[in-house]
């Protein structure tokens, strides 16, 4: 029997698991990152310079150190601390924090833009601070940041491929193993590329459409 066996229908389940894992970790990181980013973005837009400096510096580290290094550092660190985590846990923690760092800036810009102009108008109508937040700043601000939010979300889907480095069986790592077994890199990689494209292309087109629509 040969060491290498060609791609077959039996591999479908294996690939499907990879696809689902990619979707799973991306959705998780985007959701957690969005919620945290919304909160910290709000804090950043209302807090003093000194608090902002500290927050900004921490977020800077998350955005400037390459994701792959963050993943390696974190999983090594928890291992050394005596609490090794499974790849999925380490991966989703780091990917979420990474997403959060970018989302914070997205939402902060949204708050800054709206609260200055609309907030004053709303409060001159006699709304309290929280009322103007609830009815004016949040709805309008959220709409205006949607294209940038979409941009970050899409890059997270693509960056989730890096979680393979610490052993999470997402799509790219699954395909890597298939390549090793089948020695058919081109076919498998083209399939992987197609998957990302099918997810990403409609979303990015939609994002650009929204951007254009709002620019008018």
């Amino acid at each position, binding site marked *: 029997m040969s060491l290498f066996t060609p791609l077959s229908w039996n591999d479908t389940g294996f690939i499907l698991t990879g696809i689902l894992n990619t979707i799973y970790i991306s959705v998780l990181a985007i959701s957690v990152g969005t919620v945290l980013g919304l909160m910290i973005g709000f804090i950043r837009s209302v807090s003093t310079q000194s608090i902002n400096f500290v927050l900004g510096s921490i977020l800077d*580290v998350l955005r*400037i*150190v*390459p*994701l*792959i*290094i*963050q993943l*390696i*550092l974190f999983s*090594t*660190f928890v291992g*050394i*601390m*005596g609490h090794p985590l499974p790849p999925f846990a380490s991966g989703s923690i780091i990917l979420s924090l990474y997403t959060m760092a970018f989302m914070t800036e997205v939402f902060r810009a949204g708050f800054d833009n709206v609260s200055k102009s609309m907030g004053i108008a709303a409060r001159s109508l006699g709304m309290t601070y929280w009322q103007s937040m609830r009815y004016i700043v949040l709805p309008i601000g959220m709409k205006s940041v949607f294209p940038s939010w979409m941009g970050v979300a*899409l890059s997270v889907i*693509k*960056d989730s*491929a*890096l979680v*393979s*480095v610490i052993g999470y069986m997402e799509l*790219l790592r699954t395909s*890597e193993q298939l*390549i090793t077994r089948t020695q058919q*890199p*081109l076919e498998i*990689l*083209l399939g*992987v*590329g197609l998957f*990302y*494209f099918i997810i*990403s*292309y409609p979303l*990015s087109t939609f994002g650009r459409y929204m951007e254009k629509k709002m620019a008018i």
Partner: protein
Amino acid sequence: MGDYEFHWLIVFQAFPQMLNGAFVTLHVAVFSMFSGIVFGVLLAIGKTSNLKIPKSIASSWVEVARNTPALFQIYMAYFGLGAFGIHLSPYMAVLCALTFVNSGYLTETFRGGLQTIPRTQYVASWSLGMTKFQAYRYIILPQMFRRVYYPMTNQFIWSILMSSLGILVGMGELSGETQRLQSLSYRTLEFFIIAAAMYYVMTKFVLYSADIMSRRLFKGEI
């Protein structure tokens, strides 16, 4: 901290090699950026033109580059091209992949920049007897580059950070070199903390110099 003991000495001894890795990182980032700009300008002009073939080549290039992971591009260049008998070194594979992605993103950036330049600037250039090429070279592109200077800086930083994927194909840039060095001693944490710090310093340095450069380059107002 459990009973983990940090050993820094071994990292410091390997510091020259890590610096060397950092140099390769900058190197591949600069080259991929430079070629990305060249392709990006050509593709942007192609995309804004009315010619069908350049237009569709540019659009497909941009969409594939923007909608697939950089890691996928690197694997394609390193493993995938083998099916065509093309075997690239890790360095070349990463350089090609980053160039491909950079030019994809820069095309859209440049196209946006070109759109903000009024048609009257072209007309004024032509009416002075400039050729289409001269109008781009002296009037249109210099104005476009000012308007896209900050997005371009970001793209360059992205290139520095994404070149870290070289670790996965055994390239000797900062991450790959760090990976190799730590495997000799298993001081993973120490080595990668230093690598992280080096990325941080490199990026801050680039941002800082970009800021200084913009002040020297762009004296006129737009």
